[in-house]
């Protein structure tokens, strides 16, 4: 059995770990509130953007002449996957879930004999993916320095994606992120952004007659790159809310576990202290008796 001193040391160390996890939980809770707010506030923009694009694309009569970002390059050979993860750890299964989802998708692509290219956003995803898919990662982007998800970061990623598409380096682009449902549930998502999925849930506003200035094609070709940045931004917002949520619940668990451990160790400590006292007493008594 460990000595009293050792037990005491362990109790103090677990206690200070508990303090840290508790503090992290608080911080995550505060940040979660903000991230959730901005995720909610960011929604109207992407929704409106989507609506306008749907209206536009339903109005396009000649599908062949549609911009490539909308209709695709006509091939399905090279897939680009943008995996959005966090830059910091200690957030439970947050990164692992995205990676798992992405890996199963990669495996599927492999089986079908498609070519794979990966862009990782966030250093944690890069760390985990480079072991197996290191040679497929063509770019690693990290926004460690920006405090919150912001649109300019998303635009940077968007620009890289579009540039590569225009150089015909890939045919289909999918982004991976965690959708925020609530604090304990985050759903890993795979969303295809190029070519854009325009199959809407049968919106009935297709008969709206819009006037376009300049014409549809030009608007579309201006709008689609923006939409890609917007989608990425949306994913980043969802991701940051999810990250904080996941961290909060992970840290909550850790705090609770540490509490349990302290209880257990305290009982053990008291027991061995009692045992030592009893042992000493027995020694004294038996010593006295033998006189």
């Amino acid at each position, binding site marked *: 059995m460990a000595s009293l001193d050792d037990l005491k040391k362990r109790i103090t160390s677990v206690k200070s770990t508990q303090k840290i996890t508790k503090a992290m939980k608080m911080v995550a809770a505060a940040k979660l509130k903000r991230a959730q707010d*901005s995720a909610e*506030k*960011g929604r*109207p*923009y*992407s929704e*409106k*953007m989507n*609506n*306008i694009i749907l*209206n*536009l694309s339903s109005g396009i009569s000649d599908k062949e002449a549609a911009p490539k970002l909308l209709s695709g390059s006509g091939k399905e050979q090279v897939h680009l996957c943008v995996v959005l993860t966090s830059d910091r750890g200690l957030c439970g299964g947050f990164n692992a879930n995205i990676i798992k989802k992405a890996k199963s998708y990669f495996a599927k692509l492999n089986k079908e004999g498609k070519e794979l290219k990966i862009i990782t956003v966030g250093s944690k995803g890069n760390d985990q993916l480079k072991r197996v898919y290191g040679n497929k990662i063509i770019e690693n982007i990290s926004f460690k320095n920006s405090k919150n998800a*912001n*649109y300019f970061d*998303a*635009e940077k990623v968007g620009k890289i994606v579009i540039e590569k598409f225009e150089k015909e380096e890939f045919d289909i682009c999918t982004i991976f992120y965690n959708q925020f449902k609530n604090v304990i549930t985050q759903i890993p998502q795979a969303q295809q952004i190029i070519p854009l999925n325009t199959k809407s849930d049968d919106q009935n506003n297709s008969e*709206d*007659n*819009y*006037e*376009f*200035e*300049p014409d549809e094609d030009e*608007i579309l070709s*201006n*709008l689609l790159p*923006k939409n890609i940045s*917007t989608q990425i*931004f949306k994913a980043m917002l969802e991701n940051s809310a999810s990250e904080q949520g996941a961290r909060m619940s992970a840290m909550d668990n850790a705090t609770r576990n540490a509490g349990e451990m302290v209880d257990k160790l305290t009982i053990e400590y008291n027991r061995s202290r009692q045992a030592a006292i009893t042992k000493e007493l027995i020694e004294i008594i038996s010593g006295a008796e033998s006189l």
Partner: protein
Amino acid sequence: MSDEFKIEIVNPEKSFLSKEDVNEVVVPAFEGEMGILKDHISIISFLKPGIITIQAKSGEEKYYVEDGIIEFKNNTLSILTSYILNLKDIEKNKLLELLKNAEEESNKPEISDQLKYLADQKVETLKSIN
């Protein structure tokens, strides 16, 4: 009969402005300034750098935008923009910084005609604010 319609300005971060008592909005559309009144036909257009002027019952407001898309439908004007500033809140330093960036961009030798045009517009607008 009231001649008022609704305006919504959203940027990626949040819903920037929402008003219900707007009489007239002048936007810097790509092919020239465009005034929008109530019962305008449904339109989608996009913006070049310039000033949005909103005439509302509660007064006139001016905003500087760098880009954007507008959609007018059922007497609701939605403006999506990635960069917008209220002229009232704009600070001298910020303005000069924006102007400097825009001028730099416009003077880059290798940019396309369209980008050059946009950058020039930016410079012109920012100068006019000054």
